């Protein structure tokens, strides 16, 4: 797992490196990070410590090589965004939780390579094809103050 903490502005940060390897925490959009579950992938952890981090990033890679980054609100501990990229789709049902069904049922399928759900409370955009998938989901109303969508990549 990989953690990065960010402050919303350019405050000077004291960086510390915590290298860990272990199972991936299965988290869901809008929910707190759950306890780690065995049997997934391993990764490195990087922690940058500063005053009141706006959010942290948990990064994991599936055995088949798809990277998933989950953005965790530094105050509430809840996941407010998920980004994925890699050769295969990640388990979107698990990553999106309650937002998965609306995404499947109401998302606009413009092409086999693209599906978009844009609501006031959630945006999910999945695109690509085998060997090159990517996507991003976030909760517009739950972005930590000062955080821009553009930094969620």
């Amino acid at each position, binding site marked *: 797992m990989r953690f990065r903490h960010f402050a919303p502005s350019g405050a000077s940060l004291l960086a510390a490196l915590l290298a860990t390897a272990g199972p991936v925490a299965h988290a869901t959009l809008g929910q707190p990070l759950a306890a780690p579950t065995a049997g997934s992938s391993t990764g490195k952890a990087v922690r940058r410590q500063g005053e009141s981090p706006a959010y942290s990033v948990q990064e994991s890679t599936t055995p*088949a090589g798809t990277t998933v980054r989950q953005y965790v609100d530094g105050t509430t501990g809840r996941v407010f965004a998920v980004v994925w990229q890699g050769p295969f789709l990640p388990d979107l049902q698990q990553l999106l939780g309650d937002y998965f069904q609306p995404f499947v049922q109401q998302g606009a399928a413009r*092409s*086999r390579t*693209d599906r978009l759900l844009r609501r006031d409370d959630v945006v999910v*955009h999945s695109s690509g094809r085998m*060997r090159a998938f990517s996507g991003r989901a976030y909760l517009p109303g739950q972005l930590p103050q000062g955080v821009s969508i553009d930094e969620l*990549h």
Partner: protein
Amino acid sequence: MNCTELPNAPLRGAGQPDLARRIRLLWRHAAAAALCVALTACGGGGGGGGGGVPLALLPAATGAGGSTAPDTGAGSSTGSGSTANAGSGSSTGTGSGTSPDSPPPASNVLAVTVDAGPPGAPTQVNIPYVTVTVCAPGGGSCQQIDHVIVDTGSSGLRLVASAMQGLGAFPLQQGSGGSAYAECAQFAIGYTWGAMRLADVQLGGLTASSQPIQVIGDAAVPGAPASCSNGDVGMNTVATLGAKGLLGVGPARNDCGAICAGMAVPGTYYQCPSGGGSCSAVAMPLAQQLANPVAQLSSDNNGVLLQLPAVDPDAGAVRVAGQLVLGIGTRTNNALGNAQAYGIDPGSFTFTTSALGRQYAGSFVDSGSNGLYFDTTALAPCTQPGLSGLYCPDSLRNLEATNTGTNGTTGSVQFQVNDANSLLNGHPGSIAYSDLAGTASGISGFDWGLPFFFGRSVYTAIEGASTPSGAGPYFAF
């Protein structure tokens, strides 16, 4: 008039009414009556109509809608008020090459049609179809399957079971103990699932013998396991796939590749026990994976050239005819000419595009995408209901992009983006638009979908294959 009228019927499976609405935008439900003029060209039968239409040397830029002569010949685009033109180049609008005594198409040519799709499927825009013939290995049980999507974004032939006859003649790929192999193909909007069978695949006059194909919705294997469906939409019928199959002619030799040969990847290959029970993910050797059938031909096997005429940027076209030429630089009809080869990453098959002040890593050329999809703030998003995620600029925008291949090749291309609302709602009879564009996720590349192909010659070179412009993989245009 021999055209199939598409009913304005609910699509997708029963009990899933939302899905029909979900695809309302580009998978249009409009009736297609009275759209076709050239009766012999409708329906995709015959497999050869229009193959002789000369399309060489189409202009590199999608130009303004100059000539407006509607087509009258079989296999060329037709239209009530819309056009298919190629600016100063040749076009299907001339009606040439379609007289009864014209020579048959070369053996490496397949006619391509952008039309309203097969009966029973929702009308979609910007989908290129070909007719493929499959036979049981060694011959026999030959059948033409029309309305198979030409997809440079995937590899391998997938056919819907209901579109085939006498499936039993096509042997199942089997593992130990009589188990059957099956495949799952995951897409951004759902999945296909079905048995792996062997078939002789005829493309034009050429044959790839005893190829693994995916038979979508094949009852010889149990339903899709949870790790394949994953709660998403099954595209396992003609209605839900919007086609009778997919012909993947992308840069990859196999659809999954080395990773699936080395490990069981959920959502790809499965083994289904003979006595019933659920199927399990399994590693699949390259030789048994779904393969790009072009790479398996005995000649003209290094890639493909897809040529489509330009269409009017305001009105679109109700039907477009072009051609898929097998091979690159193997004959006079697939010479590279002035096209530049843009090398692509051997893993993701992507290159880099710069446009509208932004750089898009992970870009690709995909005839199976029905729009140009890229993220920008320079174009106004549509606000109309049902057009979410498309661009609606005030007027036609002439834009330029610079593409950079992994081989260092750099070149610029012109492209256009028009108001999606006026295209789709202002010309509801049209089925092909060269300037339809929409948003992307912001972390994805520039998806050069089918609009990019109109008025161009676009080459897709297979990985490791030798061509006059060097080895694949690359896209050239």
